[in-house]
Every structure is written in C-alpha cells, then in structure tokens.
C-alpha cells in the first residue's frame, strides 16, 4: 500500500483509546487496544465489546424488484426476504466460485448491503453493471459499529429500547442518542449483538455512550479474527475466494432450498452438481493437539502421511485456550474425529478434524 491509509469516522477515538493502528485493506484500523487481543476476545464472549467496522462497504440499492434482481448475482433467496430481515449471502462467478460474501437487508423502501472492505471497489461496479434499473449508492458518510457479546442487548438497549425487541437477523431504523441509525441484530463473533450504521458526525459520540456502560470495552481486528474463527465463520480471502465454491466452503446452509433446486445464479451448474455429488474438497474445523498454532498455508497430511489439504485460517483461540484452525481437506477425508498431521516448520504435529464451530453460537433467535 503506497496510498495514504483511509481513516474511519472513529479514527480519533481509536487514538484516544490507545489503539495499536495497522493497515487493513488500505484502512488505518486498530488491531488491539491496551487490554490486548486475549482480554478483548474474552470481553466479547463474557460481556460486550465494541468494534469499528466502518471500513466495510455500506451500499443502498433502490429500484423495483431489487431482491429478484440480486438473485441473478447470488444463490440466495433475496426475492422473498421480508422487510426488516437480513440474510447472509455471496456473489458467485460463472465457475461457481465466491466473489465476495455480504449481508443483504430488506429495509422496506430500499435494500441495504454490507460488503467486505477489500472488495468495495469490485462489488459496487459488479452491482452497477448487472442490476438493471437499480440505483446503487455507496455510503461514505456513515460509520458502522458492532456491539457484540452477551451483554450487547443491555449496552445498546439502554440507549435504544427497540434494540431489545429485534431478533437475530432483523434490522430497523431507530433513534440512538438523538440520531437516526440503522440497527441490525447480527455480527461476526458468534455472539449475540448488533451492527449499527451511524451518521459519521455522531459516530464517536454514540460509541462513547456505548463504551460508558460498565460491561462494554473496545476491541480491535485481532479479537475480531479470533472470535470469528472460534465461531467457525469464514474470512473472505482466507477461507473463501473466487476458486472455492460455497459447497466446498461448507456454506450450503446459506443457499435456500428454492435456489438450490431452481438455480439461475452464476455458477449454478457447478454448485448444483456439487450439492448432488459432493465437492472435491471441503472446509472443516481442525483442532491441533499441542500448543503450536497452525496458521494459514500449513499443510494437512493424513495419518498415513499423504497431503490432503491446507489450513486457511489458524490462530490461538482464547476461549478454547489452545490453537484452533480451519482448512480444506480432499473428498474422503474430513470426518469429525479423523486424526491428521499438520506440518508446522517442517515437523508433523498431531491434530483432529472437529465439527465447527469451536464455540457454541449464542444468537437470539
């Protein structure tokens, strides 16, 4: 990155809170605060943590039948997504690979879409080029703040009572501290919580209101990564990319029945074939038996010593208290309980295939 890093509306707050700033997809973001990744991770699992996710792309889609038109780009049932509901999805390519993953919300008179920071420049032209008669507006003047954890409802509910009424994957407009915000009950940590789209001028003020709660502390991208990994959630660029299909990525759950049967999305031929016959490889959870973390690109071998795959995400899981990883193994492997070896710095380290997620997801359904 030679360009000057971009700053989110919360940048001054990160500096004030002692955030350790790093470049992430061209944005100057806090990887951690003085509490540290382990403490911030546990804070989110046990109480509540506030994350700045303003680097992600917020997009408004306006027009007739936007949901139906989105179905031409994604294998999700967006045409039938009810107002006030949000749904996880992904753009696929003609080869059935994943171009990006996203959250689509039906906001009533428009659709609200959140895409990955690194792919804003790709996704927005992609939608403009392919969604006929849909006005695609990228939002630059709003922050996106995630409040996550078992106490998130208390933290947000004190300032915004309607937040308590939302269920998992529901979204609404609501007044918080005198400003209208879009609040959605979802996240990327495996915990209950919210993502809140806030006008940039009010972002620091409202974040400080959340942080004033005894149970809420700021958390950085480091904890966000270890939390999502323990929760078994894919990271675009690590676990999914244009070569991996959603079936390989164990994301068949995110393709609704009608779309599986009818197809009509890019790459449907491959995806429907893999649904029927199985994929060449699949994403699984991997628990190293020792203490050494197995990181991205570590080779996975069968008990017999044959190469069967590669780790795509791996770290230390603070809640698990040991290393955790995800990776792809070839067809015929990947049964929970299967013993494998991970080749870490030239040495074979024993590990076991496990069911994802590593921690129970704690959503308010």
């Amino acid at each position, binding site marked *: 990155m030679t360009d000057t890093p971009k700053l989110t509306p919360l940048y001054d707050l990160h500096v004030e809170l002692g955030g350790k700033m790093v470049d992430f997809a061209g944005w100057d973001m806090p*990887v*951690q605060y003085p509490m*540290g*990744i*382990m403490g911030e*991770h546990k804070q989110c699992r046990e109480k509540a943590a506030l994350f700045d996710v303003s680097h992600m792309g917020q997009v408004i889609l306006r027009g007739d039948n936007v949901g139906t038109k989105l179905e031409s780009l994604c294998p999700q049932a967006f045409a039938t997504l009810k107002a006030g509901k949000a749904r996880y999805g992904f753009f696929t390519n003609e080869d059935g690979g994943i171009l990006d993953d996203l959250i689509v919300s039906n906001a009533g008179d428009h659709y609200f879409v959140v895409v990955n920071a690194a792919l804003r420049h790709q996704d927005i032209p992609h939608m403009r080029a392919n969604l006929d008669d849909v006005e695609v507006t990228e939002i630059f003047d709003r922050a996106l703040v995630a409040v996550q954890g078992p106490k998130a409802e208390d933290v947000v509910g004190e300032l915004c009572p309607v937040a308590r009424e939302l269920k998992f994957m529901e979204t609404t407009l609501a007044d918080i501290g005198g400003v209208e915000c879009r609040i959605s009950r979802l996240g990327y940590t495996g915990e209950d919580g919210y993502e809140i789209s806030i006008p940039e001028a009010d972002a620091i003020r409202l974040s400080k209101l959340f942080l004033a709660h005894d149970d809420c502390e700021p958390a950085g991208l*480091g904890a966000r*990564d*270890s939390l999502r990994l323990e929760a078994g959630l894919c990271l675009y660029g690590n676990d999914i990319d244009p070569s991996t299909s959603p079936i390989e990525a164990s994301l068949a759950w995110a393709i609704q029945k009608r779309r599986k049967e009818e197809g009509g999305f890019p790459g449907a031929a491959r995806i429907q074939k893999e649904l029927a016959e199985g994929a060449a490889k699949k994403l699984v959870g991997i628990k190293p038996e020792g*203490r*050494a*973390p197995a*990181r991205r690109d570590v080779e996975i071998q069968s008990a017999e010593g044959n190469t069967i795959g590669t780790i795509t995400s791996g*770290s*230390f899981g*603070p809640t698990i208290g040991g*290393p955790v990883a995800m990776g792809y193994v070839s067809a015929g492997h990947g049964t929970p309980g299967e013993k494998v070896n991970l080749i870490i*710095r030239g040495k074979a380290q024993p590990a076991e295939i496990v069911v994802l997620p590593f921690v129970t997801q704690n959503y308010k359904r």
Partner: protein
Amino acid sequence: MATYYSEDHEWITVEGDTATLGITQHAADQLGEVVFVEQREAGDAFEKGGEIGVIESVKAASEIYAPLNGEVIAANEALADNPGALNESPEGDAWIYKIKISDASQLDDLMDLDGYKALIG
C-alpha cells in the same frame, strides 16, 4: 556479570563463557500476548544470525535469532506450560536459554543498556 543487547531485541547476561538469553520487555510488548514458544534442545549448536526458536502470539509467529555463536545448555521448560510468562517477566524468570558462548569476541557487536535504549527510542 554483564548484560548485552541485540538489534533483534534480545538480552544476554554473561558469566564467564556461559550466558542466559531472553527477549527484552520492549520485544515482548511488541509481540503481544505469547501463546507458544518453540525452543531448541540442550546440545543444539547455533551460529550468529541463525534461527533458534519461534515465539507465537495470538496474531503471528516471530523467529528468535542467535545474537552470537554458541550452544544450548538448557531451554527454560517453564515456558512450555506458561508461555504467557514471556509477557510478564521476559527479562527475569522467563529467560529462554542458558547457552555456552563459542566466540566471546562477538559480544563486542552487541549493545549495552544505554545503546539499546537509544535503539528503541
């Protein structure tokens, strides 16, 4: 007994031809919370600049480089069960190796405390 510092943020406290080696508090602070330490075994010889172990934090793995030629006499086994000690007392209980120094003249390439403080600002 004298303590020297390397540009790779290690300290070594020398007693005759043996020494204790660890990482500085500054290095530990930069690494973040340590979750795993991979150490060499007693008897392993090493050369200046060679990798003599790996320290893993939640986020990343970082190599330890030998500040001079020598041989491992003992690795601090307490770090296997409690790698987090490297954040608490990297310049005390959480030493990494006892080593035998092969070439004492290489100590001249290392810094004293004032020099190291100047390096880390």
